[in-house]
Protein backbone atom coordinates (compact mmCIF):
# COMPACT_ATOMS: atom_id res chain seq x y z
CA UNK A 1 0.00 0.00 0.00
CA UNK A 2 1.77 3.12 -1.16
CA UNK A 3 1.13 6.46 -2.83
CA UNK A 4 -0.12 9.24 -0.59
CA UNK A 5 -0.64 9.33 3.12
CA UNK A 6 -2.89 6.87 4.91
CA UNK A 7 -5.56 8.36 7.15
CA UNK A 8 -6.04 7.13 10.72
CA UNK A 9 -8.65 4.42 11.13
CA UNK A 10 -11.16 6.56 13.03
CA UNK A 11 -11.05 9.17 10.29
CA UNK A 12 -11.74 6.55 7.59
CA UNK A 13 -14.63 5.12 9.64
CA UNK A 14 -15.98 8.63 10.25
CA UNK A 15 -15.88 9.43 6.53
CA UNK A 16 -17.80 6.31 5.61
CA UNK A 17 -20.30 6.74 8.43
CA UNK A 18 -20.92 10.37 7.44
CA UNK A 19 -21.62 9.21 3.89
CA UNK A 20 -23.99 6.56 5.22
CA UNK A 21 -25.82 9.10 7.42
CA UNK A 22 -25.96 12.06 5.06
CA UNK A 23 -25.79 10.57 1.57
CA UNK A 24 -27.60 7.37 2.51
CA UNK A 25 -30.65 9.46 3.38
CA UNK A 26 -31.10 8.83 7.10
CA UNK A 27 -29.70 12.20 8.19
CA UNK A 28 -31.77 14.31 5.77
CA UNK A 29 -34.92 12.35 6.70
CA UNK A 30 -34.30 12.94 10.41
CA UNK A 31 -33.63 16.63 9.76
CA UNK A 32 -36.87 16.92 7.81
CA UNK A 33 -38.81 15.33 10.68
CA UNK A 34 -36.99 17.61 13.14
CA UNK A 35 -37.84 20.72 11.12
CA UNK A 36 -41.51 19.70 11.03
CA UNK A 37 -41.58 19.36 14.82
CA UNK A 38 -39.74 22.63 15.25
CA UNK A 39 -42.14 24.37 12.85
CA UNK A 40 -45.11 23.12 14.83
CA UNK A 41 -43.58 24.25 18.13
CA UNK A 42 -42.55 27.62 16.68
CA UNK A 43 -46.04 28.18 15.32
CA UNK A 44 -47.62 27.38 18.66
CA UNK A 45 -45.26 29.56 20.69
CA UNK A 46 -45.48 32.42 18.18
CA UNK A 47 -49.27 32.26 18.38
CA UNK A 48 -49.18 32.25 22.17
CA UNK A 49 -46.73 35.15 22.13
CA UNK A 50 -49.06 37.12 19.90
CA UNK A 51 -51.89 36.42 22.34
CA UNK A 52 -49.64 37.45 25.28
CA UNK A 53 -49.87 34.00 26.87
CA UNK A 54 -46.12 33.61 26.48
CA UNK A 55 -43.36 36.18 26.65
CA UNK A 56 -41.04 36.44 23.68
CA UNK A 57 -38.06 35.33 25.78
CA UNK A 58 -39.99 32.27 26.93
CA UNK A 59 -40.74 31.43 23.33
CA UNK A 60 -37.04 31.57 22.45
CA UNK A 61 -36.18 29.51 25.53
CA UNK A 62 -38.70 26.88 24.58
CA UNK A 63 -37.42 26.62 21.02
CA UNK A 64 -33.82 26.23 22.23
CA UNK A 65 -34.87 23.65 24.82
CA UNK A 66 -36.78 21.68 22.22
CA UNK A 67 -33.85 21.92 19.79
CA UNK A 68 -31.39 20.72 22.40
CA UNK A 69 -33.65 17.86 23.48
CA UNK A 70 -34.52 16.78 19.94
CA UNK A 71 -30.88 17.03 18.91
CA UNK A 72 -30.06 14.63 21.73
CA UNK A 73 -32.77 12.26 20.58
CA UNK A 74 -31.41 12.26 17.02
CA UNK A 75 -27.88 11.60 18.22
CA UNK A 76 -28.95 8.79 20.53
CA UNK A 77 -30.94 7.14 17.72
CA UNK A 78 -27.87 7.16 15.48
CA UNK A 79 -25.46 6.05 18.21
CA UNK A 80 -27.74 3.24 19.39
CA UNK A 81 -27.54 1.78 15.89
CA UNK A 82 -23.77 2.10 15.60
CA UNK A 83 -22.65 -1.37 16.72
CA UNK A 84 -25.81 -3.42 17.26
CA UNK A 85 -27.04 -2.30 13.83
CA UNK A 86 -23.85 -3.60 12.20
CA UNK A 87 -24.31 -6.83 14.14
CA UNK A 88 -27.91 -7.18 12.96
CA UNK A 89 -26.99 -6.44 9.36
CA UNK A 90 -24.08 -8.90 9.45
CA UNK A 91 -21.52 -6.24 8.57
CA UNK A 92 -19.68 -6.04 11.89
CA UNK A 93 -17.35 -8.99 11.27
CA UNK A 94 -15.85 -7.49 8.13
CA UNK A 95 -15.29 -4.24 10.03
CA UNK A 96 -13.66 -6.02 12.98
CA UNK A 97 -11.37 -7.82 10.54
CA UNK A 98 -9.77 -4.52 9.57
CA UNK A 99 -6.53 -3.71 11.40
CA UNK A 100 -8.11 -0.72 13.10
CA UNK A 101 -8.27 -0.62 16.91
CA UNK A 102 -11.83 -1.13 18.19
CA UNK A 103 -11.75 2.20 19.99
CA UNK A 104 -11.00 4.01 16.75
CA UNK A 105 -13.95 2.29 15.10
CA UNK A 106 -16.17 3.42 17.99
CA UNK A 107 -14.74 6.95 17.91
CA UNK A 108 -15.48 7.28 14.20
CA UNK A 109 -19.02 6.03 14.66
CA UNK A 110 -19.65 8.29 17.66
CA UNK A 111 -18.37 11.32 15.78
CA UNK A 112 -20.64 10.50 12.85
CA UNK A 113 -23.66 10.19 15.16
CA UNK A 114 -22.72 13.53 16.74
CA UNK A 115 -22.82 15.18 13.32
CA UNK A 116 -26.60 15.17 13.59
CA UNK A 117 -26.48 17.69 16.44
CA UNK A 118 -24.82 20.65 14.65
CA UNK A 119 -27.04 19.97 11.65
CA UNK A 120 -30.11 20.07 13.89
CA UNK A 121 -28.89 23.27 15.49
CA UNK A 122 -28.38 24.85 12.08
CA UNK A 123 -31.99 23.97 11.26
CA UNK A 124 -33.10 25.58 14.54
CA UNK A 125 -31.23 28.86 14.00
CA UNK A 126 -33.82 30.55 11.72
CA UNK A 127 -36.54 29.76 14.27
CA UNK A 128 -34.42 31.22 17.09
CA UNK A 129 -33.75 34.34 15.04
CA UNK A 130 -37.40 34.71 14.06
CA UNK A 131 -38.61 34.52 17.65
CA UNK A 132 -35.70 36.23 19.38
CA UNK A 133 -34.42 39.08 17.21
CA UNK A 134 -36.95 41.55 18.63
CA UNK A 135 -35.85 41.00 22.23
CA UNK A 136 -32.13 40.74 21.58
CA UNK A 137 -31.52 37.23 22.88
CA UNK A 138 -30.39 35.59 19.65
CA UNK A 139 -26.70 35.76 20.61
CA UNK A 140 -27.26 34.26 24.04
CA UNK A 141 -29.60 31.65 22.59
CA UNK A 142 -26.96 30.54 20.09
CA UNK A 143 -24.22 30.31 22.72
CA UNK A 144 -26.40 28.57 25.31
CA UNK A 145 -27.88 26.21 22.73
CA UNK A 146 -24.47 25.28 21.36
CA UNK A 147 -22.89 24.67 24.78
CA UNK A 148 -25.76 22.75 26.33
CA UNK A 149 -26.68 20.93 23.14
CA UNK A 150 -23.10 19.84 22.50
CA UNK A 151 -22.69 18.50 26.04
CA UNK A 152 -26.02 16.66 25.92
CA UNK A 153 -25.34 15.30 22.42
CA UNK A 154 -21.97 13.96 23.54
CA UNK A 155 -23.34 12.27 26.66
CA UNK A 156 -26.38 10.85 24.88
CA UNK A 157 -24.29 9.71 21.93
CA UNK A 158 -21.87 7.97 24.27
CA UNK A 159 -24.77 6.43 26.16
CA UNK A 160 -26.29 5.13 22.92
CA UNK A 161 -22.93 3.69 21.89
CA UNK A 162 -22.47 1.87 25.20
CA UNK A 163 -25.96 0.38 24.98
CA UNK A 164 -25.31 -0.55 21.36
CA UNK A 165 -22.13 -2.38 22.37
CA UNK A 166 -23.92 -4.41 25.01
CA UNK A 167 -27.28 -5.03 23.34
CA UNK A 168 -28.19 -8.30 21.72
CA UNK A 169 -30.11 -6.62 18.93
CA UNK A 170 -30.64 -3.22 17.40
CA UNK A 171 -34.21 -3.05 18.65
CA UNK A 172 -33.08 -3.64 22.23
CA UNK A 173 -30.40 -1.00 21.89
CA UNK A 174 -32.79 1.59 20.50
CA UNK A 175 -35.52 0.79 23.02
CA UNK A 176 -33.11 0.96 25.96
CA UNK A 177 -31.61 4.24 24.76
CA UNK A 178 -35.00 5.90 24.36
CA UNK A 179 -36.14 4.53 27.72
CA UNK A 180 -33.09 6.01 29.48
CA UNK A 181 -33.63 9.27 27.63
CA UNK A 182 -37.27 9.44 28.75
CA UNK A 183 -36.28 8.58 32.31
CA UNK A 184 -33.79 11.45 32.30
CA UNK A 185 -36.35 13.85 30.88
CA UNK A 186 -39.11 12.76 33.26
CA UNK A 187 -38.13 15.12 36.13
CA UNK A 188 -38.73 18.12 33.87
CA UNK A 189 -42.41 17.17 33.88
CA UNK A 190 -42.70 17.15 37.68
CA UNK A 191 -44.82 19.83 39.27
CA UNK A 192 -43.06 23.02 40.35
CA UNK A 193 -43.59 22.02 43.99
CA UNK A 194 -41.75 18.75 43.50
CA UNK A 195 -38.80 20.64 42.06
CA UNK A 196 -38.47 22.89 45.11
CA UNK A 197 -36.38 22.30 48.25
CA UNK A 198 -32.98 20.70 48.57
CA UNK A 199 -34.10 17.32 47.20
CA UNK A 200 -35.70 18.90 44.15
CA UNK A 201 -32.68 21.13 43.60
CA UNK A 202 -30.29 18.18 43.93
CA UNK A 203 -32.32 16.16 41.45
CA UNK A 204 -32.36 19.08 39.06
CA UNK A 205 -28.59 19.63 39.26
CA UNK A 206 -27.54 15.97 39.32
CA UNK A 207 -29.55 14.99 36.28
CA UNK A 208 -27.54 16.27 33.30
CA UNK A 209 -30.61 16.71 31.13
CA UNK A 210 -32.69 18.68 33.60
CA UNK A 211 -29.66 20.72 34.61
CA UNK A 212 -28.93 21.63 30.98
CA UNK A 213 -32.52 22.48 30.20
CA UNK A 214 -32.79 24.64 33.32
CA UNK A 215 -29.60 26.46 32.42
CA UNK A 216 -31.16 27.38 29.08
CA UNK A 217 -34.24 28.68 30.92
CA UNK A 218 -32.24 30.69 33.44
CA UNK A 219 -30.27 32.48 30.75
CA UNK A 220 -32.91 32.96 28.10
CA UNK A 221 -36.10 33.31 30.15
CA UNK A 222 -34.87 34.73 33.46
CA UNK A 223 -32.27 36.91 31.75
CA UNK A 224 -29.35 35.72 33.89
CA UNK A 225 -25.83 36.19 32.60
CA UNK A 226 -24.09 33.21 31.01
CA UNK A 227 -21.78 32.77 34.00
CA UNK A 228 -24.28 33.20 36.83
CA UNK A 229 -25.75 29.70 36.70
CA UNK A 230 -22.76 27.98 35.17
CA UNK A 231 -22.76 25.47 38.04
CA UNK A 232 -25.78 23.93 36.32
CA UNK A 233 -23.41 22.86 33.55
CA UNK A 234 -21.29 20.73 35.90
CA UNK A 235 -23.50 17.66 35.64
CA UNK A 236 -23.84 17.80 31.83
CA UNK A 237 -20.08 18.34 31.47
CA UNK A 238 -19.15 15.55 33.88
CA UNK A 239 -21.67 13.18 32.31
CA UNK A 240 -20.41 13.97 28.80
CA UNK A 241 -16.76 13.32 29.69
CA UNK A 242 -17.51 10.27 31.85
CA UNK A 243 -19.86 8.60 29.39
CA UNK A 244 -17.54 9.30 26.45
CA UNK A 245 -14.69 7.73 28.43
CA UNK A 246 -16.83 4.72 29.35
CA UNK A 247 -17.93 4.30 25.73
CA UNK A 248 -14.37 4.36 24.43
CA UNK A 249 -13.16 2.01 27.17
CA UNK A 250 -16.00 -0.43 26.53
CA UNK A 251 -15.38 -0.21 22.79
CA UNK A 252 -12.01 -1.89 23.34
CA UNK A 253 -13.98 -5.08 23.91
CA UNK A 254 -16.21 -4.68 20.85
CA UNK A 255 -16.94 -8.09 19.42
CA UNK A 256 -19.40 -10.12 17.40
CA UNK A 257 -21.20 -11.09 20.58
CA UNK A 258 -22.86 -8.38 22.66
CA UNK A 259 -21.03 -7.38 25.79
CA UNK A 260 -17.55 -7.96 24.51
CA UNK A 261 -17.39 -11.74 24.96
CA UNK A 262 -14.60 -12.89 22.68
Amino acid sequence: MSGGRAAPGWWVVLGQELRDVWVGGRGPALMFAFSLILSAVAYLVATNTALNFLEQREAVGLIVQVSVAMGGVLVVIAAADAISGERDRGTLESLLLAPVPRRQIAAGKLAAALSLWPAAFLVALPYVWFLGHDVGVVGDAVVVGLVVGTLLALELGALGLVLSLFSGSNRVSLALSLFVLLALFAPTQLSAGAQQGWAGDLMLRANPLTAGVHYVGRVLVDGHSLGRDADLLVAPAVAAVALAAVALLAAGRMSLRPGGAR
Partner: protein
Amino acid sequence: MAAAVVAERVGKDYGAVCAVSDLSFEVMPGDVVGVLGRNGAGKTTSIRVLTTIVAPTRGRFAVAGVPHTRPDEIRRRIGVLPEGGGYPGRQTGEEHLVYHARLHGASRPAARAAAAALLAEFGLADRARTPLQAYSLGMRRRLGIARALVNEPAVVFLDEPTLGLDPAGRRGLLDHVRAVAAGRGAAVLLSTHLLDDVEACCNRVLILHHGRTVAAGTVAEVVRLAAAPRTAVVRVTPDAGARAAAVLAGVAGVGPVLESPDRPGELRVDLASGERPADAGPALQALLDAGIAPLGLTLEGARLSDAFLEMTGAA
Protein backbone atom coordinates in the same frame (compact mmCIF):
# COMPACT_ATOMS: atom_id res chain seq x y z
CA MET B 1 9.96 -21.88 3.24
CA ALA B 2 8.16 -20.71 6.39
CA ALA B 3 4.63 -21.91 6.99
CA ALA B 4 1.85 -19.43 6.30
CA VAL B 5 -0.27 -20.76 9.15
CA VAL B 6 0.78 -22.87 12.11
CA ALA B 7 -1.78 -23.94 14.68
CA GLU B 8 -0.83 -25.93 17.75
CA ARG B 9 -3.55 -27.47 19.90
CA VAL B 10 -5.80 -24.44 19.48
CA GLY B 11 -9.06 -24.62 21.40
CA LYS B 12 -12.04 -22.36 21.89
CA ASP B 13 -14.77 -22.71 24.51
CA TYR B 14 -17.96 -20.69 24.80
CA GLY B 15 -18.76 -21.13 28.46
CA ALA B 16 -19.22 -24.86 29.01
CA VAL B 17 -19.50 -25.53 25.27
CA CYS B 18 -16.31 -26.56 23.52
CA ALA B 19 -16.48 -25.30 19.93
CA VAL B 20 -12.91 -26.22 18.96
CA SER B 21 -10.93 -28.59 21.11
CA ASP B 22 -7.66 -29.47 19.43
CA LEU B 23 -6.80 -27.77 16.18
CA SER B 24 -3.31 -28.49 14.91
CA PHE B 25 -2.06 -28.08 11.35
CA GLU B 26 0.32 -26.23 9.06
CA VAL B 27 -0.32 -24.47 5.78
CA MET B 28 2.38 -23.46 3.35
CA PRO B 29 2.30 -20.43 1.04
CA GLY B 30 0.49 -21.22 -2.21
CA ASP B 31 -1.50 -24.06 -0.64
CA VAL B 32 -5.25 -24.17 -1.08
CA VAL B 33 -6.51 -26.00 1.96
CA GLY B 34 -10.07 -27.24 2.17
CA VAL B 35 -11.39 -27.10 5.72
CA LEU B 36 -14.07 -29.75 5.77
CA GLY B 37 -16.55 -30.61 8.43
CA ARG B 38 -20.19 -31.26 9.04
CA ASN B 39 -22.42 -28.49 10.37
CA GLY B 40 -21.23 -27.58 13.86
CA ALA B 41 -17.82 -29.20 13.39
CA GLY B 42 -16.08 -25.97 14.31
CA LYS B 43 -15.10 -24.66 10.89
CA THR B 44 -16.38 -21.12 11.34
CA THR B 45 -15.13 -20.89 14.92
CA SER B 46 -11.70 -22.10 13.79
CA ILE B 47 -11.59 -19.43 11.11
CA ARG B 48 -12.75 -16.78 13.57
CA VAL B 49 -10.00 -17.79 15.97
CA LEU B 50 -7.33 -17.79 13.28
CA THR B 51 -8.50 -14.42 11.96
CA THR B 52 -8.42 -12.99 15.52
CA ILE B 53 -12.14 -12.23 15.64
CA VAL B 54 -12.42 -14.44 18.70
CA ALA B 55 -9.62 -15.21 21.13
CA PRO B 56 -8.48 -18.80 21.59
CA THR B 57 -9.15 -20.38 24.97
CA ARG B 58 -5.97 -22.46 24.71
CA GLY B 59 -3.18 -23.33 22.33
CA ARG B 60 -1.29 -21.02 20.05
CA PHE B 61 -1.04 -20.15 16.41
CA ALA B 62 0.85 -17.93 14.03
CA VAL B 63 -0.34 -16.48 10.76
CA ALA B 64 2.19 -15.20 8.22
CA GLY B 65 4.80 -15.60 10.92
CA VAL B 66 2.94 -13.34 13.36
CA PRO B 67 2.01 -14.93 16.71
CA HIS B 68 -1.60 -14.84 17.86
CA THR B 69 -0.67 -12.48 20.66
CA ARG B 70 -0.47 -9.68 18.04
CA PRO B 71 -3.94 -9.71 16.50
CA ASP B 72 -3.73 -6.27 14.86
CA GLU B 73 -0.58 -7.32 13.04
CA ILE B 74 -2.21 -10.57 11.91
CA ARG B 75 -5.19 -8.66 10.54
CA ARG B 76 -2.86 -6.59 8.41
CA ARG B 77 -1.61 -9.73 6.68
CA ILE B 78 -4.79 -11.65 6.10
CA GLY B 79 -7.82 -11.36 3.89
CA VAL B 80 -11.12 -12.83 4.98
CA LEU B 81 -14.46 -13.58 3.42
CA PRO B 82 -16.55 -14.25 6.51
CA GLU B 83 -19.51 -16.59 6.49
CA GLY B 84 -22.03 -13.74 6.61
CA GLY B 85 -20.27 -11.76 3.91
CA GLY B 86 -21.05 -8.35 5.35
CA TYR B 87 -22.15 -6.23 2.41
CA PRO B 88 -23.77 -2.89 3.29
CA GLY B 89 -26.59 -2.57 0.78
CA ARG B 90 -26.22 1.16 0.17
CA GLN B 91 -22.52 1.12 -0.65
CA THR B 92 -21.43 0.62 -4.23
CA GLY B 93 -18.87 -2.03 -5.08
CA GLU B 94 -16.23 0.62 -5.62
CA GLU B 95 -16.98 2.43 -2.35
CA HIS B 96 -16.89 -0.85 -0.48
CA LEU B 97 -13.45 -1.82 -1.75
CA VAL B 98 -12.03 1.69 -1.34
CA TYR B 99 -13.33 1.80 2.24
CA HIS B 100 -11.75 -1.51 3.17
CA ALA B 101 -8.48 -0.70 1.42
CA ARG B 102 -8.31 2.55 3.42
CA LEU B 103 -9.09 0.67 6.64
CA HIS B 104 -6.06 -1.44 5.80
CA GLY B 105 -3.91 1.65 5.61
CA ALA B 106 -4.05 2.61 1.95
CA SER B 107 -4.14 6.26 0.98
CA ARG B 108 -7.23 7.37 -0.95
CA PRO B 109 -5.53 7.28 -4.40
CA ALA B 110 -3.93 3.90 -3.67
CA ALA B 111 -7.24 2.53 -2.42
CA ARG B 112 -9.01 3.71 -5.58
CA ALA B 113 -6.37 2.12 -7.76
CA ALA B 114 -6.56 -1.16 -5.85
CA ALA B 115 -10.35 -1.15 -6.02
CA ALA B 116 -10.38 -0.53 -9.78
CA ALA B 117 -7.86 -3.33 -10.39
CA LEU B 118 -9.76 -5.81 -8.22
CA LEU B 119 -13.14 -4.94 -9.72
CA ALA B 120 -11.67 -5.58 -13.17
CA GLU B 121 -10.00 -8.81 -12.06
CA PHE B 122 -13.24 -10.16 -10.63
CA GLY B 123 -15.40 -9.10 -13.56
CA LEU B 124 -17.25 -6.39 -11.66
CA ALA B 125 -15.87 -3.27 -13.31
CA ASP B 126 -19.13 -2.55 -15.12
CA ARG B 127 -21.03 -2.73 -11.81
CA ALA B 128 -18.56 -0.65 -9.81
CA ARG B 129 -21.07 2.14 -9.16
CA THR B 130 -24.02 -0.17 -8.48
CA PRO B 131 -25.25 -0.39 -4.87
CA LEU B 132 -24.50 -3.77 -3.32
CA GLN B 133 -28.17 -4.41 -2.66
CA ALA B 134 -28.56 -4.82 -6.42
CA TYR B 135 -25.72 -7.37 -6.68
CA SER B 136 -26.54 -11.03 -7.21
CA LEU B 137 -25.26 -13.57 -4.68
CA GLY B 138 -22.47 -14.60 -7.02
CA MET B 139 -21.40 -11.00 -7.57
CA ARG B 140 -21.37 -10.37 -3.83
CA ARG B 141 -19.19 -13.41 -3.26
CA ARG B 142 -16.75 -12.29 -5.93
CA LEU B 143 -16.71 -8.83 -4.39
CA GLY B 144 -16.12 -10.46 -0.99
CA ILE B 145 -13.05 -12.24 -2.32
CA ALA B 146 -11.89 -9.02 -3.96
CA ARG B 147 -12.33 -7.28 -0.60
CA ALA B 148 -10.24 -9.98 1.03
CA LEU B 149 -7.41 -9.09 -1.35
CA VAL B 150 -7.32 -5.31 -0.92
CA ASN B 151 -4.29 -5.53 1.38
CA GLU B 152 -2.40 -8.12 -0.70
CA PRO B 153 -2.66 -10.69 2.08
CA ALA B 154 -0.31 -13.57 2.76
CA VAL B 155 -3.19 -15.78 3.89
CA VAL B 156 -6.79 -15.72 2.69
CA PHE B 157 -9.63 -17.27 4.69
CA LEU B 158 -12.84 -18.03 2.83
CA ASP B 159 -15.79 -19.27 4.87
CA GLU B 160 -18.33 -21.16 2.75
CA PRO B 161 -17.71 -19.01 -0.35
CA THR B 162 -19.72 -21.15 -2.76
CA LEU B 163 -22.75 -21.78 -0.56
CA GLY B 164 -25.95 -21.12 -2.49
CA LEU B 165 -24.26 -20.47 -5.83
CA ASP B 166 -25.37 -22.15 -9.06
CA PRO B 167 -22.91 -24.58 -10.72
CA ALA B 168 -21.53 -21.98 -13.11
CA GLY B 169 -21.12 -19.46 -10.28
CA ARG B 170 -19.38 -22.06 -8.13
CA ARG B 171 -16.97 -23.01 -10.89
CA GLY B 172 -16.16 -19.39 -11.63
CA LEU B 173 -15.56 -18.60 -7.98
CA LEU B 174 -13.35 -21.65 -7.49
CA ASP B 175 -11.33 -20.54 -10.53
CA HIS B 176 -10.75 -17.25 -8.73
CA VAL B 177 -9.71 -19.11 -5.57
CA ARG B 178 -7.15 -21.14 -7.50
CA ALA B 179 -5.88 -17.97 -9.15
CA VAL B 180 -5.43 -16.28 -5.77
CA ALA B 181 -3.10 -19.08 -4.66
CA ALA B 182 -1.31 -19.55 -7.96
CA GLY B 183 -1.02 -15.93 -9.03
CA ARG B 184 -0.38 -14.25 -5.71
CA GLY B 185 1.31 -17.05 -3.83
CA ALA B 186 -1.13 -16.60 -0.94
CA ALA B 187 -2.16 -19.52 1.20
CA VAL B 188 -5.91 -20.06 1.04
CA LEU B 189 -8.03 -21.76 3.67
CA LEU B 190 -11.41 -22.57 2.22
CA SER B 191 -14.03 -23.71 4.68
CA THR B 192 -16.85 -25.70 3.16
CA HIS B 193 -19.00 -28.72 3.55
CA LEU B 194 -19.12 -29.20 -0.21
CA LEU B 195 -16.67 -31.99 -0.95
CA ASP B 196 -16.75 -31.30 -4.67
CA ASP B 197 -15.33 -27.84 -4.03
CA VAL B 198 -12.40 -29.30 -2.18
CA GLU B 199 -11.72 -31.93 -4.81
CA ALA B 200 -11.98 -29.28 -7.50
CA CYS B 201 -9.57 -26.72 -6.18
CA CYS B 202 -7.73 -27.76 -3.01
CA ASN B 203 -4.37 -29.48 -2.88
CA ARG B 204 -4.67 -30.14 0.84
CA VAL B 205 -7.51 -30.92 3.14
CA LEU B 206 -8.23 -30.55 6.83
CA ILE B 207 -11.17 -32.47 8.26
CA LEU B 208 -12.72 -31.28 11.50
CA HIS B 209 -15.10 -33.30 13.60
CA HIS B 210 -16.54 -32.12 16.89
CA GLY B 211 -13.92 -29.38 17.00
CA ARG B 212 -11.00 -31.75 16.48
CA THR B 213 -8.66 -32.20 13.54
CA VAL B 214 -9.31 -35.77 12.46
CA ALA B 215 -7.28 -35.62 9.27
CA ALA B 216 -4.86 -33.29 7.56
CA GLY B 217 -2.77 -33.69 4.42
CA THR B 218 -3.13 -33.95 0.68
CA VAL B 219 -6.40 -35.26 -0.64
CA ALA B 220 -4.72 -38.60 -1.50
CA GLU B 221 -3.12 -38.84 1.93
CA VAL B 222 -6.41 -38.21 3.67
CA VAL B 223 -8.21 -40.79 1.56
CA ARG B 224 -5.46 -43.32 2.31
CA LEU B 225 -5.52 -42.43 5.99
CA ALA B 226 -9.20 -43.11 6.12
CA ALA B 227 -8.65 -46.56 4.60
CA ALA B 228 -11.76 -45.89 2.63
CA PRO B 229 -13.13 -48.95 0.87
CA ARG B 230 -12.48 -49.27 -2.83
CA THR B 231 -14.73 -51.20 -5.07
CA ALA B 232 -14.37 -53.10 -8.33
CA VAL B 233 -17.04 -53.90 -10.84
CA VAL B 234 -16.37 -57.26 -12.50
CA ARG B 235 -18.31 -58.42 -15.54
CA VAL B 236 -18.57 -62.09 -16.47
CA THR B 237 -21.02 -63.97 -18.70
CA PRO B 238 -24.53 -64.00 -17.21
CA ASP B 239 -24.54 -67.76 -16.66
CA ALA B 240 -21.29 -67.57 -14.68
CA GLY B 241 -22.46 -64.79 -12.37
CA ALA B 242 -23.44 -66.90 -9.38
CA ARG B 243 -20.32 -69.08 -9.58
CA ALA B 244 -18.07 -66.02 -9.92
CA ALA B 245 -19.69 -64.47 -6.88
CA ALA B 246 -18.99 -67.58 -4.85
CA VAL B 247 -15.36 -67.69 -6.01
CA LEU B 248 -14.77 -64.03 -5.23
CA ALA B 249 -16.35 -64.31 -1.82
CA GLY B 250 -13.68 -66.82 -0.87
CA VAL B 251 -10.74 -64.59 -1.77
CA ALA B 252 -8.84 -63.09 1.15
CA GLY B 253 -9.21 -59.30 1.38
CA VAL B 254 -12.44 -59.24 -0.57
CA GLY B 255 -15.54 -58.07 1.21
CA PRO B 256 -19.15 -58.55 0.27
CA VAL B 257 -19.86 -59.41 -3.39
CA LEU B 258 -23.14 -58.17 -4.85
CA GLU B 259 -24.52 -59.29 -8.21
CA SER B 260 -26.50 -56.60 -9.97
CA PRO B 261 -30.17 -57.60 -10.19
CA ASP B 262 -30.58 -55.56 -13.37
CA ARG B 263 -27.43 -56.66 -15.15
CA PRO B 264 -26.78 -60.39 -14.83
CA GLY B 265 -23.08 -61.15 -14.72
CA GLU B 266 -22.11 -57.78 -13.23
CA LEU B 267 -20.60 -58.13 -9.77
CA ARG B 268 -19.78 -55.31 -7.39
CA VAL B 269 -16.82 -56.32 -5.27
CA ASP B 270 -15.76 -54.54 -2.08
CA LEU B 271 -11.98 -54.47 -1.91
CA ALA B 272 -11.75 -53.06 1.62
CA SER B 273 -8.30 -53.91 2.83
CA GLY B 274 -7.68 -52.22 6.17
CA GLU B 275 -4.17 -50.82 6.38
CA ARG B 276 -3.03 -52.35 3.10
CA PRO B 277 -3.60 -50.72 -0.27
CA ALA B 278 -6.53 -52.27 -2.08
CA ASP B 279 -5.55 -54.80 -4.76
CA ALA B 280 -7.87 -56.43 -7.29
CA GLY B 281 -5.14 -58.86 -8.46
CA PRO B 282 -6.03 -61.81 -6.17
CA ALA B 283 -9.71 -61.56 -7.10
CA LEU B 284 -8.88 -61.56 -10.79
CA GLN B 285 -6.49 -64.49 -10.39
CA ALA B 286 -9.10 -66.49 -8.46
CA LEU B 287 -11.59 -66.06 -11.30
CA LEU B 288 -9.05 -67.21 -13.87
CA ASP B 289 -8.07 -70.19 -11.69
CA ALA B 290 -11.75 -71.15 -11.53
CA GLY B 291 -11.99 -71.06 -15.32
CA ILE B 292 -14.17 -67.96 -15.41
CA ALA B 293 -13.11 -65.40 -17.99
CA PRO B 294 -13.70 -61.84 -16.82
CA LEU B 295 -15.26 -59.74 -19.57
CA GLY B 296 -14.35 -56.52 -17.84
CA LEU B 297 -12.99 -55.04 -14.64
CA THR B 298 -13.48 -51.46 -13.49
CA LEU B 299 -11.76 -50.21 -10.35
CA GLU B 300 -13.43 -47.40 -8.41
CA GLY B 301 -10.99 -45.50 -6.29
CA ALA B 302 -12.12 -44.10 -2.98
CA ARG B 303 -13.26 -40.52 -3.17
CA LEU B 304 -12.79 -37.81 -0.64
CA SER B 305 -16.44 -38.15 0.24
CA ASP B 306 -15.84 -41.75 1.36
CA ALA B 307 -13.02 -40.65 3.62
CA PHE B 308 -15.01 -37.74 4.95
CA LEU B 309 -18.04 -39.83 5.77
CA GLU B 310 -15.92 -42.47 7.43
CA MET B 311 -13.96 -40.00 9.53
CA THR B 312 -16.95 -38.00 10.63
CA GLY B 313 -18.98 -41.07 11.40
CA ALA B 314 -21.70 -40.12 8.97
CA ALA B 315 -21.62 -43.20 6.76
